């Protein structure tokens, strides 16, 4: 092997990850953003620190003194919002998002049980992976992020036929449909789905995503919008719920996903 003695590797490469490392701690974020009320704070902390084994006990105790909806909105959701900030600032990463979301969902399920039914979410999204395509990790991550952001997700899974997607749209009446594909020849299903939606008078955005998909393809058919990566899905969904149609999402796409 060649000797590397005296070679300056800084001449060859730059480790931006080392130089830009954010050494802030989750605790420093928590100090600024956790709820003041002790009961809500305990719920938020369990989410923030991903204590999915403890959250059941914490929420059960909280239900003795607080209303279920307040526990969700003033305890569990604020905890998840801090997690979102930590993720955006590269202190938390994907596993922390997944485990915090799992913790929050356990807590929400308990609160909803006491509530006597599911709380009102921001809306229903139908998500699927194209027929013939077995790669679903991207869709699964986006689904968790959508749930964590307060949406209901109807997850149809992978390898889903066009007509099965249409049937689900008719049944669930979503505000958004998403399709993920990793292959150039499976994503052809997306314009076909959008065309069938149009034919049935369903005028909601169809979001295309996945390794084979790009913005040009996604916006190449009516109803089509694009998501490049999973964290972009909730902010786009928020805009749709706020009244944006697929054309306006396209027009303002760069602005919407800029911070995602």
């Amino acid at each position, binding site marked *: 092997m*060649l000797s*590397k003695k005296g070679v300056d590797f800084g001449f060859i*490469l730059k*480790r931006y990850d*080392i130089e830009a490392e954010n050494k802030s701690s989750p605790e420093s974020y928590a100090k600024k953003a956790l709820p003041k009320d002790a009961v809500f704070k305990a719920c938020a902390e369990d989410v923030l620190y991903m204590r999915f084994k403890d959250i059941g006990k914490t929420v059960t105790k909280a239900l003795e003194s607080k209303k279920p909806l307040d526990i969700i909105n003033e305890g569990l959701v604020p905890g998840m919002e801090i997690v979102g900030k930590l993720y955006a600032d590269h202190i938390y990463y*994907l596993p922390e998002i997944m485990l915090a979301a799992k913790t929050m969902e356990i807590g929400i399920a308990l609160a909803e049980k006491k509530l006597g039914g599911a709380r009102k979410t921001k809306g229903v999204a139908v998500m699927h992976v194209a027929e*013939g395509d077995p790669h679903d990790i991207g869709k699964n991550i986006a689904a968790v992020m959508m749930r964590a952001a307060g949406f209901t997700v109807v997850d149809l899974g992978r390898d889903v036929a066009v007509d099965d997607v249409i049937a689900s749209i008719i049944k669930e009446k979503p505000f958004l449909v998403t399709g993920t594909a990793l*292959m150039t020849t499976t994503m052809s299903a997306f314009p076909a789905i959008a065309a069938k939606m149009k034919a049935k008078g369903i005028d909601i955005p169809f979001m295309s995503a996945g390794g*084979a998909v790009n913005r040009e393809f996604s916006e190449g058919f009516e109803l089509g919008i694009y998501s490049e990566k999973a964290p972009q899905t909730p902010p786009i969904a928020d805009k749709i719920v706020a009244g944006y149609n697929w054309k306006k999402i396209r027009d303002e796409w760069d602005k919407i996903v800029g911070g995602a």
Partner: protein
Amino acid sequence: MAITRYTKMAYDKADDMVFGHAKHPVSYGFGIKVGAGRVIPELNYAPRPGTEKDIARITKEYVDYISQDAVNRAVTLGFPDLQLETEWISQMGTNSKMAESIVAGQTALLEKMHDKYGINLAIRHTLPDQREADQGLRPKMDKAHSYPERLVISAEIACENGASLISCETMGGKELLDYGVMTGDITACLFGIGYLGSLDMSWIWPQFVDIAKKNKVVPGGDTNCSGANTSMFMAGGYLDNDVQRTFSAVTRAFASARTLCAWECGATGPDKDCGYEGPICKAIAGKPNAQEGKNCQCAHADLQGNLMAQICDVWSNESVEYHSEFGGSSVQCWLGSLGYEVALMNTAIAFGKQKTLRDLYMFTDRARGPEGYILAYDNAYKIGQAIVAEGKDLYRRAKAAGLTAAKVIRDGNKKKEILLTTKQKDVLDGIIKTLEKLPDEESKFVDYCLKQYKDVPAFNPKNYDL
């Protein structure tokens, strides 16, 4: 077909490994010799969306456009060798007539061009593993699509209609790997790709080898694209980091123990280009190794673009969608990029400077990230040694690969050879602690995992005869 596990290294020392040379060269197609002293460029491509709608159109896309363009450019630029790779689209996996038409059409074209110009040509067909864990990975389990049966049929179609060699990106254990990557659970990854993946490959690859040999086709090898590459892409680069790169490096090491199974089942190489675990597998088995890196930017970016060329025998572009570029069609442009890189490697061989170029490739990326660090040929060799020391025990050897990789990174970090962020280091320390605590016995590990991961979506122990 008997399975013979590796219990010793093919090479006496890491320094014996170079690009273009394998201990066990392979010949196939129309004059292609792999690992016999020259690196071969391999071009992979994807048809345009919509062309899959009927057999005539998709055959034209593959044969008249993609293959013809590629061979024309290879001749235009004076490349002596070209290997094509058709990664089957899902429709080929379910429509036998479509698959037959494309396989036969491409082979006929290659034969014609070989006869016309004397260029050495071959085609790899990569079979589509569409099996779904929740539906069942073994025959008679998947009532909806019969995907396990279709996978075997695909192998038969490829081999009976003119493939030079076959490969597959098998999916066994992916459900556990996905769960492990998303939740940061290294034990789930070990169980998924290191153990379940190895069991699945040890079931399917003897069948592929039998079908290939019956038809005088070369059974190449596998890749953990669906597992360790998922982990690697989630680990990303310096701007798009979702999983720690120390984590993905260890999953890569697990994958090497798994991907080796194809060769233990009788496959001869070259393995699949996207299996970044290839240097470890080549160090163990001495079979030809296909890799990708700097010339696959059309498909993805990674942090070891030069390093992956260090000991390859086939050099690939991963995949490019067919479309027009200023310099010709996309396959022509990326073949140009590939072919000139291969010409550089072969020039180094011709001048007797292959070890110098190998080391330059390796050193450019050795410190770029932990995954490249463990795949640097000297470290890859150490991981290979850890695997063969455990020989026949699929669990222990995968664990040994992961633990050795983790310690190689830790030691490299102590020597300041590979820098790590605090988070990368914390995750690495956690991995070492977790792996060291796992039981030594396979049965205890399996019992633990069956209990621990019983609720992981789509996981069904029956898929693995457990």
